[in-house]
């Protein structure tokens, strides 16, 4: 028997309403589970430190970290160090994004150039980038330039290779369509390759933000007098575990915020296109 489900004034059937309620409940349960997991971890850590199951001098404690964070905010060092690291990450990330897009487009546009440069790119990408940092200090000295270049060096080669590979995987029939309509290779890039690669570019940006952060911290370990990387390395030298772990937590929050920002950009793009 075919049963017609009643609909309310808003046009949503009862079955759809039940589905939406279950969907919302599922999301709330997931969010609550995440929150509880974090709270349980922090509670266990604090208890372990207070009951001396672990040595608070080496492992710190959530309350110690919170107190140190409050102290950092009060004396303004939080804003100085976080601001510097944030600026270095942003500059590295933006330069990586712009340069890798330009380089990958050029490689696609001139296949002969791509053929010549391919082995160099593969070697540069597989090189351990932390090995480059001391060399950068010799070339550029200690300071922001070195840190930004270190941030770029970690992400840029992989980013160029990923984007170029993605560009080459465009549907050849779509390119054929452009040529049959009287378009040029430049048109093929602007009308098919680039707009068709926006999801790839966005997912590449998500990877790059993490890699830029890693590169900047490596740079700050070796060539900085300010910044979160500097605080981590300084804290390890003077056994200030609160300073180290607070800096690491701030870095985690920065990474998460950047990731969320690009994820929102991705959602906006998917919704629009």
């Amino acid at each position, binding site marked *: 028997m075919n049963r017609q489900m009643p609909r309310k004034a808003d046009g949503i059937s009862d079955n759809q309403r039940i589905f939406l309620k279950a969907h919302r409940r599922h999301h709330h349960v997931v969010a609550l589970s995440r929150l509880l997991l974090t709270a349980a971890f922090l509670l266990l850590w604090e208890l372990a430190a207070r009951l001396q199951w672990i040595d608070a001098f080496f492992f710190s404690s959530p309350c110690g970290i919170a107190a140190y964070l409050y102290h950092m905010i009060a004396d303004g060092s939080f804003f100085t160090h976080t601001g510097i690291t944030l600026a270095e990450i942003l500059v590295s990330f933006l330069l990586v994004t712009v340069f890798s897009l330009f380089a990958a487009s050029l490689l696609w546009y001139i296949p002969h150039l791509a053929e010549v440069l391919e082995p160099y790119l593969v070697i540069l990408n597989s090189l351990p980038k932390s090995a480059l940092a001391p060399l950068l200090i010799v070339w550029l000295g200690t300071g922001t330039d070195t840190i930004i270049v270190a941030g770029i060096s970690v992400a840029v080669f992989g980013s160029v290779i990923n984007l170029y590979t993605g560009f080459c995987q465009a549907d050849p029939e779509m390119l*054929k*369509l452009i040529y049959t309509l*009287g378009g040029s290779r430049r048109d093929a890039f602007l*009308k098919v390759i680039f707009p*068709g690669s*926006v999801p790839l570019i966005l997912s590449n940006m998500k990877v790059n933000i993490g890699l830029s952060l890693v590169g900047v911290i490596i740079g700050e370990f070796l060539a900085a007098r300010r910044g979160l990387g500097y605080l981590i390395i300084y804290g390890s030298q003077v056994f200030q575990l609160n300073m180290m772990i607070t800096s690491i937590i701030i870095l985690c929050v920065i990474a998460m915020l950047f990731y969320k920002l690009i994820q929102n950009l991705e959602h906006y793009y998917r919704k629009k296109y």
Partner: protein
Amino acid sequence: MELLSLHDISYAYHNLKGETPALSHISFSVSQGEFLAIVGPSGCGKSTLLSMIAGLLLPEEGDLFYKGKYITDCGTGAVMKVGYMLQRDHLFEWRTIYRNVILGLELNHSLTGENLDYVSKLLKDYDLYAFKDKKPSELSGGMRQRAALIRTMAIHPDLFLLDEPFSALDSQTRLNVSADIAQIIRSTDKTAILITHDLSEAITLADRVLVLSRRPARVKCEMPIRFAVDRSDPLRIRSTAEYQLYFNQLWEVLTNEQADAPKG
């Protein structure tokens, strides 16, 4: 009047493993306003032939002529507008239907008021105007194929090259859309070359059918198609005695071609 003619055309693909001949000494011509269908076994080189006519490939041997003028080196694109419809509609998901159908105009730098009015008229004529701001994924297969046709027609092509443009459609939609598109092309007195695997489609749509041999493709036979009834109704055509006759003749040619193929 003879619009396009091919004389003794040959072409082969080359790679490090060797040479794969695709076309071998192909000669035929197409008249102004004619609808020519080309059929042949899978992979025989039909699409290669169409790419060559479109000017995307240059023949290794042989010559192409446009109204008697030698065009082998420059391709048809240099002397006339060619409208190419591919196996899939290839509407870009990041563009609305309207922005998809004006793609050719954009590429040819001819986004004039007159051309845009023509596009709007085509959208209205083919019942797509209400969907012009939709994304391609929101349209049915038949509507998408009509949008692809409008994109092709917008540039006012002199020659339509149809590379199995209905193959991705379900059989009912295919029957209707192919008849619609053939009717549209005929009503504008345009010339068309259709590549298809489907003998029924070739017979119902074309004025002449060209049968190609297996790879490397040669012209196996040419068959003019004439019907006493109106061609706009594909189902009616398929029930006529002439249709059966043409089908059997073409079937026999293709079956003989298969039988002649080397085993293994």
